[in-house]
């Protein structure tokens, strides 16, 4: 086991309000198998839970480079990424989705995904203007990449949908599109901020399975924020609970869900689960 992402002593406050306090965390990534022909990197799914305002999204924003931590370290593959721009961090292999959905509304579905291939492609301005053979080849590759990422979601984002503007998608499909777009950056760590928010039970079930497939078939390490405890139970290798920016529990779902501090933080949830 080696950690793909490690946080140590991470703290962040906004004008006196401490949002993340002295947080330690490691996202594991195992080298699958000793035999080299099954060298798919297999990650883990680590769920972050906690009541609203606990600092979960802020944690993502710190990792993805939107905010700079006040103190503490963020290391990817052992090297510090503190102070790097979101673009650099994305290029290092950390991709994310947003709780508030930030897709490119006035671009087509396929373009949304293709746009995320920018960092891994290199056609220059003049090559594009003259449409050189190399640029056309790369464009084809980008197109195929986008199609393969969209194909991950079954029929939902296929066919005629490719050329539809993204604003015409349903809420659930927008969430799927955002995941496909993140996948197109070719990440090793995927951070999903409430991927099941706003979905109906059937869709939630589907997205749960999908997240599992992302780990098993593609080999991403996944950090996921989720409120739906069934989803968390279904997918998590490990769970951490945050409250007021402090990690109050860490371990398997069963351990964390029965932790008295967690139940207290959630209050309502603890009562509901015993019903």
């Amino acid at each position, binding site marked *: 086991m080696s950690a793909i992402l490690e946080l140590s002593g991470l703290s962040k406050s906004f004008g006196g309000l401490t949002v993340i306090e002295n947080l330690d965390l490691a996202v594991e990534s195992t080298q699958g198998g000793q035999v080299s022909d099954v060298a798919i990197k297999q990650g883990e799914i680590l769920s972050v839970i906690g009541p609203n305002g606990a600092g979960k999204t802020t944690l993502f924003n710190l990792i993805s480079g939107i905010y700079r931590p006040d103190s503490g370290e963020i290391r990817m593959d052992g090297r510090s990424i503190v102070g790097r721009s979101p*673009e650099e961090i*994305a290029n290092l292999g950390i991709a994310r989705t947003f709780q508030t959905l930030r897709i*490119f509304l006035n671009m087509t579905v396929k373009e949304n995904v293709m*746009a995320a291939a920018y960092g891994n492609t290199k056609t220059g301005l003049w090559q594009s*203007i003259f449409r050189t053979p190399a640029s056309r080849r790369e464009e084809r590759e*980008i197109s195929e990449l986008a199609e393969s990422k969209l194909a991950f979601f079954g029929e939902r984002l296929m066919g005629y949908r490719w050329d539809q503007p993204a604003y015409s998608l349903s809420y659930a499909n927008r969430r799927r599109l955002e995941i496909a777009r993140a996948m197109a950056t070719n990440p090793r760590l995927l951070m999903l901020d409430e991927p099941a928010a706003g979905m109906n039970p059937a869709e939630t079930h589907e997205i749960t399975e999908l997240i599992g497939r992302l780990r098993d078939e593609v080999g991403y390490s996944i950090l996921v924020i989720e409120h739906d405890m069934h989803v968390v139970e279904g997918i998590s290798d490990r769970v951490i609970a945050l409250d007021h920016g402090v990690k109050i529990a860490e371990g398997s779902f069963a351990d964390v869900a029965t932790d008295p501090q967690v139940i207290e933080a959630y209050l309502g949830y603890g009562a509901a689960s015993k019903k």
Partner: protein
Amino acid sequence: MSQIGVDQWVEQSDERRDRYSGWTAPARRAFDKLPTGWKLVGVLGAAAAFPLLVPQGEIRIGITVLLLAMLALGLNVVVGWAGLLDLGFVAFYGFGAYFYAIVASDQLPAHWPTWVAIPIIVAAAALLGALLSLPSRRLVGDYLAIMTLFFAQIFVELVRNFERLPFVSEDLDLTGGPNGIPGVEAWDLFGFQINSFKRHYYLLLILLVVLIAGLHNLNASRTGRAWRALREDTLAAEHMTTPVNKLKLLAFVVGAAIAGLAGSIFAAVQVGVFPNNFALPFLITIYAAVILGGSGSIAGVVLGAVAIGYIPELLRDPGKAGWLFYIGLAVMLVVTMKRWQPIAAVTIGLVVFGFVVRFVSSAIWDESIMGTANDTFISRFVDGWVLILGEQQDLITNYAFVVAIAGVLSVVVTRGWLRIATLIPTIYLAILVWENKLALQPSITRQLLFGAVLVVMMAIRPQGLLGTRRVEIT
């Protein structure tokens, strides 16, 4: 009958989402079915034939339109694609024009050969664009707009007061101050002088075709996508591996280079440059072309430039202005009523209304039909129907104008029969005002009608003529 399965449902999606409705739909569908190549050849053929079909003087209009189209394409890169509100754009145009004027006139002892001057001018404009992109790293939206507007203003002031600048010696009057630079030489491409309207027109047309091809490719490339991504959501684009600052810089550079090139042609066409050529009104004209045509669409902004560049020229001629006025009325009528029955009702009502008014009015006060109609085809045609006032023409038309405006406003809030009843006298008064006043005062009318045309066009298609509907963050 087989059940409609998912596949069929998907297959038929195009029919379900048919884009056109109403009575213009068949024509628009037929146009869509034409192969793109045909459309291009048609448009290009018409553009190439234009100088051969019109009198020498009107080729000048074509040149204005092509220059505006070039500028609109450049601005579209920055505003339409990258979404950066750049109000300094006109300064790059001025920079290219002044640069060319300085090196191709008696401002400097040595005249530069065209093939040396043009690449240097374009590169220098691009560099200036790169400099202006620096504030866009931190500033977006309104703040960037103000900052770049400042740049445009500085440019005009700078060329106007160049010799008075500190560090500049008194006799180095590079820009000619408020008088500008006269006597700019024509482009000389290896012995071939671009020295007539016709040659300028074709030079511009060729450059425009090359430019459109290049921009079309760029738009479909990873760079074009990245520009649109950062327009849509800069933060998300950054998280999707887009180097935002580099792309902002690229957009400014490409836009500035195009404007610089256009400027160097403009200086040669006008045989001189003056500070006011590059002041704010012209910036607004370029923006109008981009917005009217449909920000983001190449064909759109070119069409916008044709409309913005050509309509004011059309309005110089009272006969053509008359046509535009009546066609505009007809379009408004069609747009407000949509179905043919009320349109027919209004038309018939209008004709009857006019004759009744004429009959009653002439019986009461015979001066009310004593005026002489304008000497154009349409004016003579309506002469026997609408009142052409002999006396008190000004006073009465002023009142009629106010009432007509009130009528237009009430049309907006009325429905059904009431709307038809409001429309008839409103249109009648509009025609009365037109025939008695506006048609006789071309200069004022031009502005007024031009404004009205723009308002109508934008009301019909807020996204621009060829633009696609855009939604904001929901």
